[in-house]
């Protein structure tokens, strides 16, 4: 494994770090996107460890900074989505120039996962996704499960009158809940993005690993919900989905991070051949 910086953008204004496997010939490329406002190696060095692990497994990995994050200069006056599209065009161009057209796997946490889905909806080279706390639609049973779960939780039962009252007050005042407010800060993928992205992944026989933490609760409350709610034929065969409700969004605890890194590496090892050879839709 070897690491080196690589440049992209107009006049090479930005840079990222490439982690190269011992044999980079034909290796698929993993691009680790920024998690929220954090720079390319974070949170807590997660992207560094994931990239190095996946490089050991045979992937070329790149961790990058979108404009305005980490070491990348900002782009003023652009919508976030347009900015990400423009940056991605340059990143892709730099990677294709260096390695030729290869299958790409996008990895992202939080807004990084949102960006991964939006880019995957447009870019035919994207054949794999590692999504950490992506937005998940609710399936038919989500509300029932939430209610049952609350009824089984002594503290929640005691809290029901207060929760009902605050919901009524919120509805009257039009003020969003804390969870909704958090989601409003994110530029979430649209329904069309989700359909296009995962439809393409299924058609190209790509692979997805989606892991959800306590941050996704109560929007997401059962492993399998994401795939069921998307209701795209064949997605269940290529998407591995896990729910880790005892963990926090940014994996601040070393033991949790180590588990995540190992899970992603395992997924990478299992699907290297598929992700390398999968053909475009």
């Amino acid at each position, binding site marked *: 494994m070897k690491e080196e910086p690589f440049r992209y953008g107009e006049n090479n204004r930005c840079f990222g770090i490439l982690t190269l496997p011992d044999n980079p010939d034909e290796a698929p490329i993993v691009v680790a996107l920024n998690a929220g406002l954090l720079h390319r*190696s974070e949170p807590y060095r997660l992207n560094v460890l994931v990239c190095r692990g996946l490089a050991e497994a045979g992937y070329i990995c790149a961790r990058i900074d979108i404009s305005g994050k980490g070491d990348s200069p900002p782009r003023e006056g652009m919508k976030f989505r347009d900015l990400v599209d423009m940056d991605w065009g340059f990143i892709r161009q730099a990677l294709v120039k260096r390695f030729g057209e290869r299958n790409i796997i996008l990895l992202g946490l939080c807004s990084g996962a949102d960006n991964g889905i939006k880019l995957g909806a447009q870019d035919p080279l994207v054949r794999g996704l590692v999504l950490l706390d992506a937005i998940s639609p609710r399936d038919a049973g989500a509300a029932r499960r939430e209610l049952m*779960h609350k009824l089984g939780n002594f503290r929640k039962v005691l809290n029901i009158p207060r929760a009902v009252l605050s919901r009524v007050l919120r509805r009257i005042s039009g003020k969003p809940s804390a969870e909704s407010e958090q989601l409003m800060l994110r530029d979430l993928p649209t329904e069309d993005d989700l359909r296009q992205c995962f439809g393409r992944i299924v058609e190209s026989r790509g692979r997805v690993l989606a892991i959800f933490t306590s941050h996704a609760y*109560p929007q997401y409350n059962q492993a399998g919900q994401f795939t069921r709610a998307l209701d795209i034929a064949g997605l269940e065969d290529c998407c591995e989905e896990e729910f880790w409700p005892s963990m*926090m969004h940014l994996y601040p605890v070393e033991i949790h991070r180590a588990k995540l890194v190992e899970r992603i590496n395992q997924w990478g090892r299992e699907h290297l051949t598929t992700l390398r050879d999968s053909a475009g839709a």
Partner: protein
Amino acid sequence: MIEPFFFDNAQLFGCYHPSADPASTRGVVFCPPLFDEYRRSYRALSDLANACAKNGVHVMRFDFYGTGDSQGMLAEASVGRWRNDIDTAIEELISLAGVETIVMSGVRFGATLASNVSHAAVKRAVFWDPVESGGQYLDWLDRANEQFRQEHVEISRYTGYGFDDIVYENFHLPEQLKEGLSGLKLVTEYGTPPAPIQVITSQKEIAESHRFEHCDYPGVEHDWPYYFDGLLAPKPVLEQIAEKVVGA
């Protein structure tokens, strides 16, 4: 434009920000904070380095061994290794830019480490919220870990999915690193010849304590708590650091 590169036999990652004045012989080496504080201040240090370079100073930033984009794991790190890293970064800046005088700058424990490295080219130091003793810092890290544990207890109550009874450490520090950290203190007379360090503090109380001969409080109060996820980029603090670094 930032020039990223690996140095010290490709073990350390660094960013060189060339001065807008190529003939400048002045440089600054920024020593980043550790652990969560590194995450929270990364962008601020990148912006600060750009501001210094724009104002005629060659800048070197780097990641300590086992942290950030540098190679290795914390399990292999030690205070001795990190002090050598600073020395190597100084030499690298001299060889890259031909600088003759260097200002040493550091944030939190990066400042504490930096104050314990002497080099003939380093003439003075500008530190942002330096940690005064390693023992104090380890206590602080323990409190932060306890805070993490409490947050996970709260989460298990909120979701009702049960609590994992594990060791809640943000980073597991090996014994040799803990020993090294606990033995380190901030050196307040620094450089060749020794001069009092310049401290920029975000705590008014420290500025008023007259603990440091040269200490400025730019009027922005903030702490470095782990339980707050946001990034730190206090403009008045960064402006003041840039001013002190760039100033003659």
